[in-house]
């Protein structure tokens, strides 16, 4: 009964448009009131949720991405990606995906990727003769690789929830992220051949070299982050702050496109974005504590295990559940609420936590491009000045592609567990 109060208040708040963090807080408060637990538990649990060492790295990674973004990396990355794959049929579509993969190694957020790459690529593709719906769809779909290729805010949250090393989580996302990118390129190519999309001339090795040199300092940030985490010299927080300093230096002194006067605004905007995540984490920690004290994870695990204990079927059930949740819920909120309950189920059937965490993040990222709540879908449709329906139709092949990669990652654990096991001891 009390859990019913919790869940119904939460659902009602979501429907009327209350911010998700506040909906979690209101439903938790209603539960505490019904059960008769003193309200002082709420600030205590919020504090405990936010005072987690791993979360310290979130503002740093967001700042590093925003500084790079403000420092003129988008055009450089697109130029480099274009000189690599632009000569293939449907080349600008492939460029779009390649740029998202490179961009993902810098910002780690899908929304920033969709907005930055989309604002340059969508008008450019339309001008070159590509249909607007395809241009918007491929931008939205490819932006989801951002939080899978390291660095990644959702992976940091997973680290905070489960105690898994953030470095291992970042590495776990690398192969699935690259696979997703390559699979989307293949899909774009097949569509381009069938619909006779344009291609451009091979720009030559000279341009490839020049564009690489131009983008080198931006792309190097991914290397810096990976090295920082793998060397054992720096914690994720230290790596994130050093990456921010690096991004500032590159934007200001190397590319000279980041004016010093723009830095305070970028700093404050990054802090506000981070604060929003932390508020969500704080309220969600109360909600998650209630679920755990009501033994909901065990109840979910027991009820599913009573139907089947076949690992293959359980992975399928988890995937279907998360894909449905991802259609309606914001990524971080869904992660905080569902990760621990589903991890209980996953470990009960012997699924490796790193493998499980990777497929959870993959699922929720796919949710960013599915209606009715698909943030990246909205951004790209808006840039392309299209209603949602044609973009939803055009994104369908890419959704199928991403789900195919998700199934591969789901049933071949080595795709996510091999790299962390080899590179970290």
């Amino acid at each position: 009964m009390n859990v019913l109060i919790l869940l119904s208040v939460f659902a009602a708040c979501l429907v009327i448009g209350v911010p998700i963090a506040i909906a979690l807080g209101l439903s938790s408060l209603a539960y505490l009131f019904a059960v008769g637990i003193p309200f002082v538990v709420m600030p205590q649990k919020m504090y405990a949720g936010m005072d987690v060492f791993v979360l310290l790295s979130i503002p740093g990674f967001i700042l590093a991405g925003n500084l790079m973004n403000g420092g003129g990396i988008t055009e450089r990355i697109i130029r480099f990606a274009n000189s690599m794959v632009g000569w293939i049929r449907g080349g600008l579509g492939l460029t779009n995906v390649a740029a998202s993969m490179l961009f993902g190694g810098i910002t780690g957020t899908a929304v920033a990727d969709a907005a930055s790459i989309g604002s340059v690529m969508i008008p450019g593709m339309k001008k070159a003769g590509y249909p607007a719906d395809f241009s918007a769809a491929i931008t939205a779909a490819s932006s989801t690789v951002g939080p899978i290729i390291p660095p990644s805010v959702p992976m940091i949250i997973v680290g905070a929830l489960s105690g898994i090393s953030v470095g291992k989580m970042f590495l776990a996302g690398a192969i699935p992220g690259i696979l997703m990118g390559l699979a989307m390129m293949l899909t774009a190519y097949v569509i381009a051949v069938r619909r006779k999309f344009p291609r451009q001339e091979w720009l030559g090795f000279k341009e490839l070299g020049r564009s690489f040199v131009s983008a080198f300092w931006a792309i190097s940030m991914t290397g810096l982050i990976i090295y920082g985490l793998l060397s054992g010299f720096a914690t994720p927080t230290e790596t994130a702050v050093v990456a921010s300093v690096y991004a500032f230096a590159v934007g200001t002194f190397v590319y000279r496109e980041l004016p010093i006067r723009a830095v305070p605004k970028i700093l404050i905007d990054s802090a506000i974005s981070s604060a929003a995540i932390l508020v969500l984490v704080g309220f969600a920690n109360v909600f998650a504590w209630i679920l755990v004290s009501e033994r909901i994870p065990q109840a979910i695990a027991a009820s599913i295990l009573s139907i089947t204990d076949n690992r293959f079927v359980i992975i399928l059930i988890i995937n279907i559940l998360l894909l449905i949740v991802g259609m309606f819920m914001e990524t971080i909120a869904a992660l905080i609420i569902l990760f621990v309950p589903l991890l209980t189920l996953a470990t009960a059937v012997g699924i490796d936590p790193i493998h499980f965490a990777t497929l959870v993040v993959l699922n929720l990222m796919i949710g960013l491009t599915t209606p009715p709540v698909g943030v990246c879908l909205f951004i790209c449709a808006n840039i392309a000045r299209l209603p949602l329906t044609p973009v939803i139709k055009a994104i369908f092949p890419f959704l199928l592609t991403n789900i195919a990669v998700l199934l591969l990652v789901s049933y071949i654990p080595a795709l996510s567990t091999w790299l962390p096991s080899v590179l970290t001891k």
Partner: protein
Amino acid sequence: MQHINLWVTRACRWGVGIAFAVLILAVLVQVIGRTIGVSPVWSEELTRFGLLYLAAFGAGLALVSGDLVNVDVICETLPPPWPRRLRLVSALLVTGLCALLIGPAWKFTSIGVMQTSPALRLRMDFVHASVLILLGSLLIFSLLRVLGMIFNDESGLPSQPEIPS
């Protein structure tokens, strides 16, 4: 009311900026200190406190800017004037939640009087107060939104603050 809004926004932007700057400097001191072999023990603690205050001052601003995301696919597709009415209800609920939690947050803050942090020797009520400030900033900005919607015919939609820090 606009004057109050401007003043609170400016104060919170300064607060969030200073908290972030403290966090960055503490981490840099940690990295440089380790490199030269004199790593201070307090830097990790200060970083954590910086993050808590970043969340505290940024919470209200995140509500205003729309960074505190909601699911608006249902409420914003209803015929007028329902979207605006629901935005008002939503703002009232935020105000109500925070008003109900201010007392418990004060109690939680007070508990910290008897504790000190291990490295900085800082009284923990100053640290616990971050939750009080977080709820306070949410309360003020949501109340301003409610008042703006009732008396100034504002839309209640998220907006980017216009003042520089």
